[in-house]
């Protein structure tokens, strides 16, 4: 029934336009603002489920013989936006994007519910910013035109800037400016790269850019332009320093969105831009990215170990986990080039599963810290201890998420990391061993966090007076817990969803496009 709807446009514009009545209503009726925001995000989520209905069949309907990367793109909408520059409003989703769009719409519902109680100040504006952010993020994952992608990619910074700056913690201004300037810094070089590609091809269509032949020198420049943009977004070591600040200062909802969705845009960008457009340069410089990823997983893991602030610890853990994503993507490239298509597919699958799973787990971890923060108004680990005695339900779920964060089999955290490590061993046993080694560090900092916060004697008066979670908080965390377990025990549907586009991507990147 949804076949003829402009479903993707609806997913993008419903939240964005839905923010307008919220903004106009102002602060007068916070309850109504919350309800409306919940309604909009829920409807968007339900609509996004409809995307799945047509999946499985190939999109041969487009009618041309040479479908390239568009072969797997469903629900395409292709309108001319700016005639003079041949910029198109071209949307479409394949398995890779669908997974991320679903993650976005799903998380947005939870974020609105989370903000229900913890945000009392300027509720309508908070919800409006979240809605705009949701629409723009969906747009990023659906855009098949590079300029359209860029507009969504950058536009996203404005609501996030406001979210951190207005509802954030004590050093929010520093954090939000750092966040904005860092990300802007990264992406403007990508813009120049895209303009150069436009100069070569006369189009911003991703599918066309993937086809154009480029010399080694050109590819190298473009590769680094993309690398700066997406490395900042992921974020990779050494450009990761904005993330801990942004996370610590952001309100809980902002942290969840940042960790669960925004970081994924970096990984997604590598898969959509770097690999298909500049495969040879990506291959040649893969070692740089692999090295940076390994540093992220090992070194940043150690950094996480010494953190005293829970949010900071989880932020560093996010960087380490996102290191697996970039590792998987670039290892696959070298595997694909050495003829191991199966290994390559496993690597990219692993990276994708890791992104989705990290979306749930880090979102859940930040939400959990938010639950504690709302009660104690401190994020310092030393202020806690023995929370299990006063908040048993919370403790149960928190331990589950911590286990998932360590990559315990049976949780979604295991699947992605396992696949990436599997691919890494095929690439180079040393890299594989190093990556595997980090599981131990991950377990160390996560379990130590659990030990200090959750277990032990009740540490102080404040902890003794803690109330366990109310129904709203329980609902959010239980939903996330179900997701974590579901994808941990039964990752196959997710894998199936992405099989076809990943297989085609691997076929595509094997072919050198040197001109």
């Amino acid at each position, binding site marked *: 029934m949804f076949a003829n709807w402009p479903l993707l446009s609806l997913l993008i514009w419903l939240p964005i336009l839905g923010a307008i009545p919220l903004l106009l209503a102002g602060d007068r009726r916070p309850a109504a603002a919350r309800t409306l925001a919940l309604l909009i995000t829920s409807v968007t989520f339900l609509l996004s489920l409809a995307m799945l209905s047509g999946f499985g069949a190939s999109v041969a309907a487009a009618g041309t013989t040479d479908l390239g990367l568009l072969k797997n793109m469903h629900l395409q909408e292709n309108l001319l936006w700016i005639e003079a*520059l041949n910029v198109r409003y071209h949307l479409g989703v394949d398995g890779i994007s669908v997974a991320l769009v679903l993650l976005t719409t799903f998380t947005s519902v939870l974020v609105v519910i989370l903000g229900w109680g913890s945000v009392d100040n300027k509720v309508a504006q908070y919800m409006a910013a979240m809605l705009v952010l949701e629409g723009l993020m969906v747009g990023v994952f659906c855009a098949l035109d590079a300029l359209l992608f860029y*507009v969504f990619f950058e536009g996203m910074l404005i609501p996030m800037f406001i979210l951190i700056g207005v509802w954030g913690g004590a050093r929010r201004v520093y954090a939000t400016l750092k966040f904005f300037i860092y990300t802007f810094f990264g992406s403007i070089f990508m813009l120049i790269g895209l303009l150069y590609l436009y100069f070569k091809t006369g189009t911003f269509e991703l599918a066309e850019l993937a086809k154009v032949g480029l010399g080694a020198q050109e590819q190298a420049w473009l590769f680094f332009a993309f690398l700066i943009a997406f490395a900042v977004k992921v974020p990779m070591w050494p450009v990761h320093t904005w993330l801990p600040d942004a996370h610590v200062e952001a309100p809980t909802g902002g942290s969840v969105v940042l960790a669960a969705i925004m970081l994924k845009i970096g990984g997604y960008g590598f898969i959509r831009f770097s690999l298909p457009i500049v495969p040879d340069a990506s291959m040649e410089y893969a070692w740089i990215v692999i090295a940076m990823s390994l540093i992220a997983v090992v070194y940043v893991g150690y950094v996480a170990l010494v953190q005293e602030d829970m949010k900071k610890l989880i932020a560093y853990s996010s960087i380490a986990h996102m290191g697996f994503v970039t590792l998987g993507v670039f290892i696959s490239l070298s595997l694909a080039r050495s003829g191991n298509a199966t290994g390559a597919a496993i690597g990219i699958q692993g990276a994708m599963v890791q992104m989705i799973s990290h979306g749930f787990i880090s979102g859940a971890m930040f939400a959990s810290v938010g639950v504690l923060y709302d009660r104690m108004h401190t994020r310092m680990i030393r202020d806690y201890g023995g929370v299990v005695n006063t908040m048993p339900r919370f403790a149960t779920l928190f331990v589950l998420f911590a286990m998932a964060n360590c990559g315990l089999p049976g949780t979604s955290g295991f699947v992605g990391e396992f696949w990436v490590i599997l691919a890494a061993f095929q690439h180079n046993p040393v890299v594989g061993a190093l990556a595997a080694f980090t599981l131990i560090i991950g377990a160390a900092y996560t379990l130590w966090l659990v030990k200090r916060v959750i277990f032990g004697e009740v540490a102080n008066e404040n902890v003794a007076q803690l109330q366990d979670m109310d129904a709203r908080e329980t609902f959010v965390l239980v939903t996330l817990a179900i997701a974590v377990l579901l994808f941990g025990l039964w990752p196959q549907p997710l894998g199936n969803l992405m099989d076809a586009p990943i297989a085609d991507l691997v076929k595509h990147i094997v072919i050198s496009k040197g001109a």
Partner: protein
Amino acid sequence: MISLADILTLLPESFLTIAICALLLLDQFLKPAQRSVTHYLSIVALAVTGWLVLQQFGEPSAFGGMFVRDGIAILLKLFVLLTTALVFVYARPYLRDRALFVGEYYVLCLFGVLGMMLLVSAGSLVMVYLGLELLALSSYALVALNRDSPLSSEAAMKYFVLGALASGMLLYGMSMIYGATGSLDLGTIHAVTASSTQRGMLLFGVVFVVVGIAFKFGAAPFHMWLPDVYQGAPTAVTAFIGSAPKLAAFGMAYRLLESGLDGLGGYWQLMLALLAVASLAIGNIAAIMQSNLKRMLAYSTISHVGFLFLGLVNGQPEGYAAAMFYAISYALTAVVAFGIILLLSRAGFEAEEIADYKGLGQRAPWYAFLMALTMFSLAGVPPLFGFFGKLLVLKAVAVPGTLWLAISGAVFAIVGIYYYLRIVKVMYFDEPEQGATAIARPADAPVRMVISANALALLILGITWGPLYGWCAQALGITK
């Protein structure tokens, strides 16, 4: 020999001249309380002139090629008129509060507009100079409008001395070019420079012309007058000289460099490239340190001029179209920024220190929102209008050979982000200062509606900028 066709071609300019004279006379007989008549009649005069421009009576050129009316001239004139009308609307409450609500303001601004209209239509060196001087002399007087303010007088003096120097440079360069080519007609100069091999004197002239242009634009390192003038002039005047003349400056640069000296492109393009990078660097870096919003916007103008120059350096129609689009987008954005300063100022209080904007998000949420849109647009964040101007300019230089310019443009755009965001930060993230009262809304709703429409247009044009760029491209003869 003046023919009827010539007069018809110049009908918009002639009408405006007559209207100004009539206003000047009429104003003498008005009581101060009736000053609004002058205000409204000025806007009507601008509207009628715009209508006449659109009608395109007469021929594409008049007075033997002295005056040309091509797509560029029409488009630039329309936006000059529109921007000026917006300035008039925003300036009224400000002027009224300060005993500056006088006919001279309108008459001088309109003379400036007339100068700009002649400048962008110039087909000969004489016309360029006449238009420019008409604009410049009106501007000097406008800056000194508040004659009791020492800051204003100082700014006007500085502006006049440096402006006169720049005019001298330009005139000297023009005389060199005349000496080398034997003609004042830009078309003839174009033909001669394209084929001439004796370039010594021509080059000498080009250097002086470029310096003159850079002075008038306020491009670094010839920017010294600009921050003082922006800060010292009454804000109503800053709003005028900070917006529409940028369009005229583009027109002047196009006429002199492309229509006239295209044959020497290789030389002036390099000069413009260096001026562009210097302006980007100095404008953006100096703006960071400012505590006065008008002064910050002045440095921001310098950086935008740098961006605009980037569009000119390739000497390609696409680049000119991008620069023109950039000028239009800048004028429409800057006028909102100055408009908000005008509307937030009250009698005895100039809302021009950045600290005055602390907590504006709480005190006047709607103005804060409009200001934030403007700042994001100036910073070049999509999906706002300003981004697409930058995009087009960067597109023009992101080609082999000038990639370094694209990269320096990008780097300084990042620097620029900081000070624009600082305004947003001050408005939204800082608490209002002790004693800062809620800002009284200006009594007249129409003013509020116009500025809201103008600011929201920055968002809407960010999504639908296609037709506007189409017109720019069409004006420059780019066929798709």
